């Protein structure tokens, strides 16, 4: 199996007989800036079936938000260069005209944005913002749209929809506003929902409510959902597959349970180790990731995580590892010396012997906690 083709196996591995709803292949989004071309999304491939949830996880600057917005065609700046392919139900989205996309937005695919205060129009009443799509796409009359909006507010768990429908966004709490943006996104019955950090601006108790609501709506409407977040905890219990992004690339892609049970990519492993967990006793030393994400104008020539990786070997800095499939079908990773394999253990031991601080501390952590993540 030659390496570049490996990505296309993601397609076959997850697309059922009914064909994927969303098929993204070698998708790239670059931004022209005065200092150079920023490769925000650089060769991403995945597929999504109807009814499935894909979690996209990564730190800020990893390209996860750009990926979601650019697949939907929301990035329309003159400096945006999109290439590759993103097909929704067979319709190519890359290069589609704005009027073609406008017919898809709302009715076929919709997005819930991160900050409910800025994504709602502060000078329009809630009802007007929900009915806008209903009137435009579904050609409903004013009264029908309003009745529908009331029903939507009710279904997203807003008490007293008759009163709320004629209120302005500032009169609602953060959680309520996010419920309204969800109602707007669901108004025209989309089959694909992008949720871009939908709970990051909310408190934990409200976050749990909103995630529950999204999950319930997804099941009821049999939608596909792309859940973009930086929080591994959010995706762990609520997704079917997870794609971990780093520096514009997918570095690991697997069914959710498989990913947590059997981490292969050192970056995912490091991310899991760096989160403080409730199950750990107080004052547990956290395994931090040294350094910072690479410059996306001139990314490292080899593996993009190599400069921060405790497993790094000379090969990593010269050759970019392909996204290859593991022994477990459907689990893809981008690493020469994966975690938990003999090659990985050897590389780590070698680095620890050389006294590379990241490797030394990781070795200690693994020794303290036999079994580790592997």
């Amino acid at each position: 199996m030659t390496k570049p083709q490996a990505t296309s196996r993601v397609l076959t591995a997850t697309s059922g007989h009914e064909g994927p709803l969303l098929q993204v292949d070698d998708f790239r989004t670059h931004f022209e800036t005065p200092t150079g071309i920023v490769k925000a999304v650089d060769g991403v491939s995945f597929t999504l079936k109807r009814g499935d949830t894909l979690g996209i996880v990564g730190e800020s600057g990893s390209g996860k938000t750009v990926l979601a917005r650019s697949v939907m065609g929301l990035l329309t700046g003159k400096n945006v260069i999109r290439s590759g392919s993103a097909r929704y139900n067979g319709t190519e989205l890359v290069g589609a005209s704005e009027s073609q996309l406008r017919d898809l937005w709302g009715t076929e695919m919709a997005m819930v944005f991160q900050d409910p205060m800025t994504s709602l129009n502060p000078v329009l009443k809630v009802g007007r913002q929900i009915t806008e799509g209903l009137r435009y796409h579904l050609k409903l009359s004013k009264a029908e749209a309003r009745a529908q909006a009331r029903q939507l507010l009710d279904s997203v768990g807003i008490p007293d929809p008759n009163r709320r429908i004629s209120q302005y966004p500032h009169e609602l709490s953060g959680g309520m506003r996010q419920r309204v943006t969800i109602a707007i996104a669901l108004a025209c019955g989309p089959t694909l929902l992008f949720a871009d950090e939908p709970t990051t601006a909310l408190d934990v108790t409200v976050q749990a409510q909103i995630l529950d609501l999204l999950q319930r709506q997804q099941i009821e409407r049999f939608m596909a959902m792309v859940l973009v977040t930086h929080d591994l905890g959010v995706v762990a219990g609520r997704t079917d597959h997870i794609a971990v992004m780093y520096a514009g690339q997918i570095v690991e892609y697997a069914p959710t349970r498989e990913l947590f049970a059997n981490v292969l990519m050192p970056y995912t492993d490091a991310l899991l180790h760096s989160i403080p967990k409730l199950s750990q006793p107080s004052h547990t030393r956290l395994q931090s990731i040294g350094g910072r994400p690479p410059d996306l104008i001139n990314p490292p020539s080899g593996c993009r995580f190599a400069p921060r990786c405790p497993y790094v070997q000379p090969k990593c800095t010269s050759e970019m590892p392909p996204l290859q499939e593991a022994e477990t079908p459907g689990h893809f990773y981008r690493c020469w010396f994966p975690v938990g394999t003999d090659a990985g253990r050897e590389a780590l031991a070698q680095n620890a012997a050389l006294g590379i601080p990241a490797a030394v501390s990781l070795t200690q952590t693994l020794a303290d906690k036999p079994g580790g993540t592997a």
Partner: protein
Amino acid sequence: MAGTGTAHLRDPDDVLMRIEDLTVEFHTSAGIVHAVSGISLDVRQGETLGLVGESGCGKSTTGRAIMQLPAPTSGRVLFEGIDLAAIDGKHLREVRTRLQFIFQDPISSLNPRRKVKDIVAEPLRIWKRGTEQERQARVTEVLDAVGLDPAVAGDKRPHEFSGGQCQRISIARSLVLEPKLVICDEPVSALDVSVQAQILNLLEDMKARYKITLIFIAHDLAVVKNISDRVAVMYLGKICEVGSPDDLYATPAHPYTAALLRSIPVPDPTVVPSSSGLLLGDLPSPIDPPNGCRFRTRCPAAQERCALEEPQIRAVAEDHFVACHFPLVGTTAPISLPMPAGPVSVPTSPSSRTVTGDEMGEQRRMTGDESGNNAGSTASGSVLLIGAGVTAFIVCSIVQAAGGSSMFTMSFESPDNFLLELAMQVTFWPGWLATVGLIGAGVLGLVDRDS
């Protein structure tokens, strides 16, 4: 959750800082915001106190009130035995050198036009500590301690650094004066998880190296557990629960703490998120907080008592304190207010709030013998007023008679004595009015008491 009380406080001689009955209120056009309502806390030397709660619970306001930014509405903040709320500005500035603050947003809390070494050296310059060489040496040492290369970083400006590095600079600036207590207000919430771990580790290292005491304010329960020696959970301006992190997280006693812990997403796919036991609704408005326990409107275990009586903080286990009538650990709180005899609907919705408020008022009226005392004082006041009125009548009559006129008829046949005429003029109408007014008020007072 609305807990007041001081059961969780330790020996005042044993603590570095002690807050007593701290209240912070903000006057807005919509009404008074009760941001922090009578909380008490203390921190021992070398301890890390974690303050945790949802946004709007008053945790940041508490941190700022300790620094007197702004000064609390009432209550005492004792730092090394000095009440910060009572001392003057000059003295407070001096105390603040030992009391430092790290802000949430590392980028906006640094002056973008200054070089890093100047930002870090500024506190030393203001306080004229050492010579210029000594100051530079100190800046170099602190920058090195927080993991920045002083030779490279010193001449750069904040925009050349990432968020995590800016937070390191903030930490260096707060440490340069060798403070005793550092208050960290959400120091890692603006950072990515990988950087968050670096900063948390750094704070632990700095604590060990410089022997500082930390107050760590955050909304992330896992982060707070990781760094704290003692955790206080806040809700709507009150303290719910205080305890050591391992105890408090393993066996939460307050229903709010338990609900918070349940709503945290766990990075483990085998744990299926359940929607049972999650809190419904949003935080009530701090302008009109619920009476009794402030958490009762969202509490799954709320009972009528929770609306009538505010729970007091009490111990449920060793070094584990809770402000709840019906805690999940330990026993139900002893009743301190008599309960109404008849059945009362369980007040869990804001609409029932007014009803229960009235009932509570009635309780007070029936139980307090202070009402009797009040009536007694009214009676003696009335008698005094009548006495004063009679006196005024007598005085006026004497003056008028001396001037050859009576209380009711003014004679303008001028007396020879100028002073007597003046006294007559002054006492005629006012004297009459005072007489009637005082006697009238006194009689009304007596009638009111009798009824």
